[in-house]
Structure formats: structure tokens, C-alpha cells
């Protein structure tokens, strides 16, 4: 579960369910600078598909990786613009 990314900020949305992981991720990304990476830690299994879909449909972000283990879902999102 270790990551090779240089994480700038970690967002803990454990326990929160749809639509909170995506909405909070968007808010946290807005506070970052270009090139910085946000780590999102969630327990909502739907966040795997939702954050992937959000990143694909949103300008200026790139989903670098997603990890899953022990009921925890981690997402690494870079702000690209």
C-alpha cells in the first residue's frame, strides 16, 4: 500500500458516502497548485468508480492511481492546470 507519489495534501473522507468523496475531492483540488498531488482516503467502495469518472470528466485533473485494501480506498489525483 505504499505509494511513490509526492503527496501534497491528504483528504480523509472515511465513513462518508456518495456524493461526498467526489464533492470533497473537488473542493480540496481547488485549494491546490498546479502539479501538486492530492491523496484521498475513503471507505466508500463506490468511490473507485466515482472518482475515476469524475477525473475523466473534469478538466485540469489527472487520476494517477487508485489503491484498495482492508476496506480502504486510496486515490491519487494530480492538479494539472
Amino acid at each position: 500500500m505504499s505509494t511513490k507519489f509526492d503527496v501534497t495534501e491528504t483528504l480523509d473522507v472515511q465513513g462518508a458516502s456518495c456524493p461526498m468523496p467526489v464533492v470533497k475531492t473537488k473542493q480540496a483540488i481547488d485549494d491546490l497548485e498546479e502539479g501538486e498531488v492530492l491523496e484521498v482516503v475513503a471507505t466508500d467502495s463506490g468511490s473507485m468508480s466515482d472518482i475515476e469518472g469524475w477525473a475523466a470528466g473534469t478538466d485540469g485533473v489527472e487520476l494517477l492511481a487508485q489503491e484498495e485494501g482492508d476496506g480502504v480506498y486510496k486515490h491519487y489525483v494530480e492538479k494539472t492546470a
Partner: protein
Amino acid sequence: MSSDTQPSGDAAAPTEAELRQRLEDLEAQLADLEAAVGDDQKQMTIVATKGTLDMAYPPLILASTAAAFGWDVVVFHTFWGLDILHEEKSKNLKLSAVGNPSMPMPNALAALPGMDAMATRMMEKKIDENNTATIEELIELSLDSGVDLQACQMTIELMDYDEDDFYDGVTTGVGAATALQHMADSDVQLLV
């Protein structure tokens, strides 16, 4: 004018080169039009007409998520949908036990006094246990992320509501024409 059934020689059928040229012209025109329309920001309009606890969630969840995508979102609330924006009533939305095939009881029982209250309490408990956001939280979240929550003026008056009954930030003084205008420009239109 020449007959349709008898194309006369080479003048009638365009050559492949002409067709290709035409295609290029049209593609260029399309690109110009797309540029003229400007940004590719998506737009969504939802019309929310129901004020039960279960029907209050989908518009707000979709609206706040669409806002996270950077979309321009309007939710137009009319009839019982107004209760979602009503500060007091929104904290007290009910679930109907009758006519809901998902309820674990027959309609004859569900119609008894107190059954709606019981069904509502059960759902509220589930919402709490599952850490699902409350309606109030979703409204604040939607307003914070720039969603335009509109309350239909005609039904405000019909239901004897006051503009002050609604959450701060709710748009009042709008009607069907305002909703239609946004709908016509929208990529997604939903009636809930």
C-alpha cells in the same frame, strides 16, 4: 430541371474529390461554430417536483456532483419539491409507506395511522448509520458549489409559503420561462 430518375452524365454525380472538399468545408464550419459557442462547460437542469425524503435525494446528489465536474447547474423546484428548499420542512421530510412496493408490508397495513412516521424513522436511522449526508447538508453543499436552487414563484404562492421560509441563497421570483431557458441550453435535463 433535369429528371431525378435519369441523371444525365457527369454533371449530376459529384466526384469523390468534390465530396471530400465539401466534407472539409463542413468540418471547418463546425469547428468555427464550436469555437463561437465558446467554452465546453456542460449544463444541467433538474426539475424537482416531489417532497418526500426519498425523492429529495436524487436531485441534490446529482446537482452537487455535477457542480464538482464544473457544470453549470440549475435545480428548479416546483409543487412539493419546494419543501426541499423550505428550511423547516426540509428537516422533516417524510417517507410514504403506502404505494411503495419496496416496503416490507402490504398497503392495507401501511395505510394505518403512524406507518408513514415509522417508515420515515426507519429510513432516517439508516441514513444516520450509513453516514449518508442529510438533505440540509446537501443543500448547503450545493449552494456552496454554485448550484442555482430555484423556487418556482407560482407554487410558492399556491402553497402559501413566504420567500423567507427558504434557505439563504435560494433563487425566488422565477417561473417556467426561466427554467425552460436554462433547459434549452442544457446537456442534461431531468424531471424528478
